[in-house]
């Protein structure tokens, strides 16, 4: 069995990701309530719900189309900072997946890198600004390193998820410089970033999927 994700895997992995993040919605709500406006729980519940609905209609499409359209569906129903950044990530990842019928680790690493760049362009934040970039950027780098060293998919995703978790922990002591939580000034120090937490949950979900597959 080749160490790749098929079209069906992508569909299943996205559904699993939706289920896992929805299960974690309350945790995200709490974190966002502490240093933001508390809507991130609702955002992921509605957004991933909308994504799953869209997936029903996308069952016959190619991987790139699945990613692009389901990402837009999320933001359409649950637009927000997180929503538009998620849509941007999916759109950039889709661009890298164009024409591909399966995704290997190298593809996934490239897609993660493109997603991170998309977020930086859209949100104009830097690493260390206490945003989801603090989880996404190191995770993308870890995937890239794993791909270069010929690692298998499942352990590479697990490693990326652990690196993301470190990134999340690091956000605790950071002072927010971007987005709504920057208006909460010093109160943001001491709480981990909710968006980064969501990214880590997503990587955790993907790693678990790949591990079950393997």
């Amino acid at each position: 069995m080749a160490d790749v994700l098929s079209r069906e895997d992508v569909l299943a992995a996205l559904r699993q990701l939706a289920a896992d993040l929805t299960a974690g919605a309350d945790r995200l709500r709490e974190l966002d309530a502490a240093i933001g406006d508390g809507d991130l729980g609702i955002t992921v519940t509605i957004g991933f719900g909308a994504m799953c609905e869209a997936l029903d209609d996308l069952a016959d499409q190619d991987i790139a189309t699945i990613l692009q359209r389901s990402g837009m569906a999320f933001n359409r129903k649950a637009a927000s900072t997180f929503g538009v950044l998620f849509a941007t990530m999916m759109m950039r990842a889709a661009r890298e997946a164009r024409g591909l019928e399966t995704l290997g680790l190298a593809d996934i690493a490239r897609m993660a890198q493109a997603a991170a760049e998309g977020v930086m362009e859209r949100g104009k934040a830097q690493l260390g600004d206490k945003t989801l970039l603090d989880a996404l950027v190191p995770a993308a780098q870890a995937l890239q390193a794993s791909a270069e060293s010929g690692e298998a998919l499942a352990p590479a995703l697990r490693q990326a998820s652990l690196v993301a978790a470190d990134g999340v922990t690091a956000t605790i002591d950071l002072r927010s410089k971007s987005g709504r939580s920057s208006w909460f000034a010093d109160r943001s120090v001491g709480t981990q970033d909710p968006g980064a937490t969501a990214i880590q949950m997503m990587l955790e979900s993907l790693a678990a999927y790949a591990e079950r597959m393997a």
Partner: protein
Amino acid sequence: MKKIINEPMDFVDEMLEGLLLAHGGQLKAAESDPRAIIRADAPVSGKVAILTGGGSGHLPVFLGYVGEGLADGCSVGNVFSSPSAETMYEATLATHGGAGCLYLYGHYSGDTMNFDMAAEMAAMDDIRVETVLVSDDVASAPPDQWQRRRGVGGLFFVYKIAGAAAAEGMDLDNVARVARAASQSVRSMGVALSPCTVPAAGVPTFTIGDAEMEIGMGIHGEAGVHRGPLETADSIATRLVDAVVNDLPFERGDRVAVLVNGLGATPPEELYILYRRVRHLLDEAGLVTYRSYVGEYATSLEMAGASVSLLRLDDELTRLLDAPARSPFFQQS
């Protein structure tokens, strides 16, 4: 807080249905997107279209400023959440009258990112879009970083100015120019006395003591610059006016328009008591109050509190502020 609602998840769509039933002569939804609310007579051919949008729960902001001499369309988000780039794009297509579009909205990161994405989509259709952000809340960043500030009640003035400019036939560059001039000349500061509850969340956005107030709190409950015992209307007025006047700064002899805005649960009577002292302070500071607005112009559901916004007027802004305007929420003749 008890609410007159059905399913919390239907809050926005049922609100829009009611609004369109009540004001069908003035407003409609774009055919392609029920969350894109536009003037009933859109697109107005040859006129710059002004597009706005933002989260629900702030009426009359944003939707309430779609009308004659105001904005052409509004993208309606969930409560306190940005509308989507796609809705903004649909609103753009449905209001674009061939003279370009101004995206005019309050500065919040989610909104900005969605509007930027919508502008990229519009650009692919060769629709020219200019963007002007309103960042009037002095509590949210220091003066040298004013563009990081969030948009609050001062939005009203910028809608009024830009809307009048578009209505009198200015081209996109000039509409954007006067909108920017207004945005750079407006400052606001608010006080919150009690929180509000997002229907789908069910819990208040923040907690505050029974005898406390918070100066500079954001319209979604973002922390302010001072929390302390509730003070008299006169001392609150002094805090708000001082913060606003010293920020631009407004100077002796400046002609200004003033808005004393209620956040939701504060009765108009209290707004006039606040306005009374605001006006005394402006007079003492040698500012010339040209026009006053007192009422609910930008709210946060049932939050108690108020804000003061001050706009410095030159001759052009004065003329545009004086122009007529008409929406279901605001009329000036």
